[in-house]
């Protein structure tokens, strides 16, 4: 009788575990929108967090300022030399913009970075818990941020928005396997772009992997990798990284290209969200 009871207990535990895992997979999902309660709790929690973080932020800013002062003299000299060429460059840039606009109208292109505006945001927490590859920023739906918007820095592509509350959002980094499998990229070889798909990330050596490259070309180290704009999530022309090396895949049919991410994720303090104009 007692043996039978123990059997039942094991069975119930097993059943509950299976149900629990099912519920987990439904709830722990990047595509699930946050409920009103979750948004409110997250915003109020992060508001308290931001207030407490203010003095730390102040100290960190002052330290950064102090470090910058050390290099400002050298930079100033360099910039002075560049300023003289600025007007010339601006005129060239205007002409190029006009040409670009005309060409885009002819080709009906509408997915380049020029059709987007940037929302600047500050990172307020980075990847707590480690495995989630999430970064939280201080802009949310009230600032026009929506799910699936691309996030960049002046160095290159960071990731995309996966969760938004009213005043904060979460970014999934491209170093996450689930996200980077959806990014179509072009590898610059001899002034043309070779298409491929970001399909993975090597944690230990910090490189992204591009798969599905069918063209038999030699990839030079340092060649730039940019988004192609296919898929509609990421605008075209955002720098993803630079080529580190390439090798044949296990079947010898396509090539695998290893790329070094353009963004230093360990120094991620400010980001820009790419929002379509209009």
């Amino acid at each position, binding site marked *: 009788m007692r043996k039978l009871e123990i059997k039942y207990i094991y069975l119930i535990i097993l059943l509950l575990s299976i149900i*629990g*895992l099912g*519920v*987990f*997979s439904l*709830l*722990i*999902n*990047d595509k699930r929108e*946050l409920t009103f309660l*979750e948004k409110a*709790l*997250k915003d109020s*929690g*992060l508001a308290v*967090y931001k207030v*407490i*973080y203010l003095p*730390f932020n102040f100290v*960190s800013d002052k330290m950064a300022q102090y470090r910058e002062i050390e290099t400002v003299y050298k930079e100033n000299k360099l910039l002075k030399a560049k300023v003289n060429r600025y007007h010339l460059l601006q005129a060239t840039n205007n002409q190029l913009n006009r040409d670009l606009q005309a060409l885009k109208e002819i080709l009906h292109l509408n997915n380049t970075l020029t059709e987007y505006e940037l929302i600047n945001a500050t*990172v*307020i*927490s*980075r*990847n*707590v*818990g*480690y*495995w*989630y*590859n*999430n970064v*939280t920023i201080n802009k949310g739906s009230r600032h026009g941020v929506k799910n699936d918007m691309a996030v960049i820095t002046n160095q290159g592509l960071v990731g995309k928005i*996966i*969760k938004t509350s009213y005043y904060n959002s*979460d970014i999934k980094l491209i*170093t*996450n*396997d*689930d996200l980077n499998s959806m990014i179509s990229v072009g590898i610059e070889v001899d002034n043309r772009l070779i298409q491929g798909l970001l399909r993975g990330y090597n*944690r*230990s*050596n*910090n490189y992204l992997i591009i798969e599905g490259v069918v063209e038999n070309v030699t990839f030079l180290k340092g060649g730039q990798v940019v988004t192609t704009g296919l898929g509609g999530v990421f605008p075209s022309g955002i720098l993803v990284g630079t080529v580190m090396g390439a090798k044949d895949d296990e079947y010898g049919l396509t090539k695998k290209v290893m790329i070094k991410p353009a963004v230093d*994720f*360990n120094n991620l*303090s400010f980001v820009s969200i790419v929002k379509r104009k209009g």
Partner: protein
Amino acid sequence: MKIGMIVLVISFLLDGFLSLWLPFQFNRLFILKAMFTITTLVVIYPYFNHKNSRFYQAGLLFGFLYDIIYTNTWPFNTLVFLLLCYLIIVLNYLLVSNMINLLIMQMVVLVSYELLSFLILNIIGYTTIYLSDVIFKATHSLLLNLFYGWLLLMVLNLISDKYKIKRLD
């Protein structure tokens, strides 16, 4: 118990603050991955004076906050923290209270958290984690967290001696 809750709040906030200061990429992880909330749960258990239900409530609350504010994985951490509370209670029952045992308890709890994350997140397909990565992260994050646990214990002992705060070992 109050002191335990205060320390939990501080550790919870520190987890977030330090994430902005410390490197978080795997190849630069080294020994600096803060998991102070979990470490604190181990250290503060004696301050709950064997009121286990209160301890479970604290675990539940901070697991929930961890999910909502940091990871967006509700109810994963809420339940895992609850399991860790159970583990801490069992370990406290089995082991004599001293510094070495406390460090062992911290190690067991931190590694258990990593293993549970590995199992559950892989099974539900949320992300792909390799066992070798889990072992690397667990071993490399121990030093900072054990040091924090030890420091916390020293500070708590000083405060509890000064203000005559009751604690049951």
